[in-house]
């Protein structure tokens, strides 16, 4: 066995010689800390989630599927704040500068500003864990109720759009302790939510992947879907 290992070591040496790769590097300046902080926040967010895939998938499928069906059907859902979701882009704008309060744990807040813009405050990733669908739906409704544009698109699992739907707005850090990020929308901008229907597992295990949501704030109007 020893001689065989020596022979194998010869393989490694020779392959190292044939395929010499660049020397190892560390993360670019500052990014190691940035990634570490991001991971710490993400792990905390994921901490309450179960690690066994099937139980979680089934739960998500049920919760998200129901909400997605509501969005897809354009069902009017009464929201705790008194506004309504639907296809109307919002006739009544919320007045004042008070942040709206939600019956569910506050993961976001919508605030109308005196200069006619709308600020959306978000908690770090918290809204993307449990009950994502509910938050997407509620936030869409709030934005619409404030008189701003929110677009919800439902896609068949096989259909994808090319990524360029417009200039994606970057979040600003608030640094106030209450909220982590904020977006400031004008009436020209769009809040875009993409909902993809559940995908059946190709391996035929009977499971499906949960409904997939993605949201973005687009500077200006959203470009039409360019299917690929």
């Amino acid at each position: 066995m020893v001689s065989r290992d020596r022979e194998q070591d010869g393989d490694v040496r020779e392959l190292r010689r044939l395929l010499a790769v660049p020397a190892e590097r560390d993360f670019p300046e500052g990014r190691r800390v940035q990634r570490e902080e991001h991971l710490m926040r993400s792990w905390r967010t994921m901490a309450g989630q179960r690690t066994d895939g099937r139980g979680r998938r089934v739960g998500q499928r049920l919760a998200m599927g129901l909400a997605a069906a509501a969005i897809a059907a354009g069902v009017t859902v009464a929201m705790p704040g008194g506004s309504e979701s639907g296809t109307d882009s919002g006739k009544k704008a919320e007045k004042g500068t008070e942040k709206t309060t939600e019956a569910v744990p506050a993961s976001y807040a919508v605030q109308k500003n005196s200069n006619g813009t709308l600020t959306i405050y978000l908690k770090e990733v918290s809204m993307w864990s449990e009950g994502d669908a509910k938050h997407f739906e509620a936030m869409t409704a709030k934005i619409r109720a404030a008189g701003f544009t929110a677009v919800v698109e439902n896609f068949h699992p096989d259909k994808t759009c090319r990524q360029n739907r417009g200039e994606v707005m970057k979040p600003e850090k608030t640094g106030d302790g209450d909220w982590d990020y904020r977006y400031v929308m004008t009436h020209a901008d769009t809040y875009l939510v993409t909902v993809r229907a559940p995908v059946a597992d190709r391996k035929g295990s009977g499971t499906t992947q949960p409904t997939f949501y993605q949201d973005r704030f687009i500077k200006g109007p959203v470009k039409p879907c360019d299917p690929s």
Partner: protein
Amino acid sequence: MEPPFRARIRAGDENSFRVLFQEHGRAVYNHCFRLTGDWSVAEDCVSLVFLETWRMREKVEPHGGSLLPWLLGIATNVVHHRRRTARRHRALMERMPPPGLLPDFADEVVGRLEDQERIAAVRKALDQLSRPDREVLALCVWAGLDYAATAEALGIPVGTVRSRLSRARRRLEKLALKNLEQDLEPAAAERQQTGDRHEAVRPSSGKGEGPW
């Protein structure tokens, strides 16, 4: 008494995960770079690997040595199923602050671009191998895992690691020899060949001008 490190990882202790990242983040980063050929993609892969690590923490064996083979095994899968994994963690990844906020130093940037050119050439040769052979090679030859650790990372027998490495070596040597022969061929044809003669200058335009 403090539970062993593996037990804390299995229990989802955040600080232990932080230590795991601090200890092995660089190795995972370089492994991802060698597999993807792009430093910035490798950075995102590292995040995905450690998110996946958290998700799969209960699969860690309670006893054993370094968790690096386990991490590199996950990294290998993440790179291969990058889109699917990214979709799973997209919401978390989108909350990642834009990397452009931090300065890039010119020398550093040039060095990284040279790395990418170098690895592109290597990957071209590597494309001649099957994916299983490439994975063994990346772990054993580049990441420096021994056979047992490579086997653990990929969930295959040690003997399979050996045979894949041997096969990769034979294949690459054969290809190198073939390329060498091809490079030598034109030099062997010293005398004029039929049909190999072309005009050395352009035809005159008829106005007494030179060919240029």
